[in-house]
């Protein structure tokens, strides 16, 4: 009897076949918005280097309705990145304290605390 294994084709749309993979794609696409926002930040750095007039121009541009909508979109995706990043971090860094494995929830919670702390520090620094 001869063998004739059948190889099933993988479609380019493979990720649409199951909610699990759709969620993965959404998670990955957050990276696009992170890059776009970094581009915005770097424009800010350039304007900062170019002097007060250029800087004020940047502040005004960043406040335009189009830019605000764009940034709100970035904020949604960036937040989703943070949430998903913290959720998987315990898998990459198993911790053992006093002979017991530190529960994943604790590691995740610690990241949220760090997130809040960093955000607070930045807000206070900028607000003053």
């Amino acid at each position, binding site marked *: *009897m*001869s*063998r*004739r*294994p*059948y*190889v*099933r084709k*993988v479609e380019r749309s*493979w*990720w649409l*076949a*199951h909610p*699990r*993979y759709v969620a*993965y794609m959404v998670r*990955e696409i957050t990276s696009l918005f992170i890059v776009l926002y970094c581009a915005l930040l770097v424009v800010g750095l350039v304007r900062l280097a170019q002097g007060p007039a250029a800087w004020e121009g940047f502040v005004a541009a960043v406040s335009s309705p189009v830019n605000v909508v764009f940034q709100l979109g970035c904020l949604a995706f960036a937040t989703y990145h943070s949430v998903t990043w913290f959720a*998987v971090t315990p*898998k*990459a*860094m*198993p911790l*053992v304290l006093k*002979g017991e*494995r530190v529960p994943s929830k604790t590691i995740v919670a610690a990241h949220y605390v760090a997130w809040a702390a960093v955000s607070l520090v930045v807000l206070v620094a900028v607000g003053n």
Partner: protein
Amino acid sequence: MSQTITIEVLRYRPETDAEPFFQTYTVPHLEDGVVLDALNYVKDHIDPTLSYRWSCHMAVCGSCGMMINGEPKLSCHAFLRDYGGRVIRVEPLDHFPIERDLVIVMESFIDKLSSVKPYVIPKAEKPIEQGEYLQTPLQLMAFKQYTQCINCLLCYAACPQIALNDDFVGPAALALAHRYNLDSRDGGKGERADVVASNQGIWECTFVGACSEVCPKHVDPAAAIQQTKISASLDWFKARLLPGAN
């Protein structure tokens, strides 16, 4: 609950079929039955030509992995009552060539498994006279979950990177490598790195996490791979920044 269950099975007989096709069977519904029971009923009473792998019927041997309604599952672990009386679609595990009916060609996995040297490579020669290795509960805890793999291949069926790249070493093989790398008796991480830390090893993984979601033994291969990425990165920088240090 309905008295019968309808299952739709992907058939493929290389000697007669140009392509796979679905065949529908109606079997009696069994109260605590699993999909494997339905397949056994088909083979025993309706169609003896149906081919599939199975053995223990209790989710420890890893033989009966299949796609059930698009989800990689052990057919002995998929309860008929969970499908709400609707048609159950049974197909061979994704991402493997189909040998016949529900039987897949798994030679590529066997090769990948052996390529990661899944055995203790002792740190140093230890003659019998020196006695046995001692291991504390803590040392065992470090790697125990990664010993639980039953080679059922559900993780390979779930992994999109396996779908896109046949050469990816894959979750189970990398989890097993991690099991040995973490074993206090083992000193073989460097030897395994040629495969484990190669481009076809851990670096093909994009942490989709589907492997760990479908694993019936909670091995968590995704965790094993991410930990190995960190370990391999540290080794990479150590080798270049501190040459001569072990």
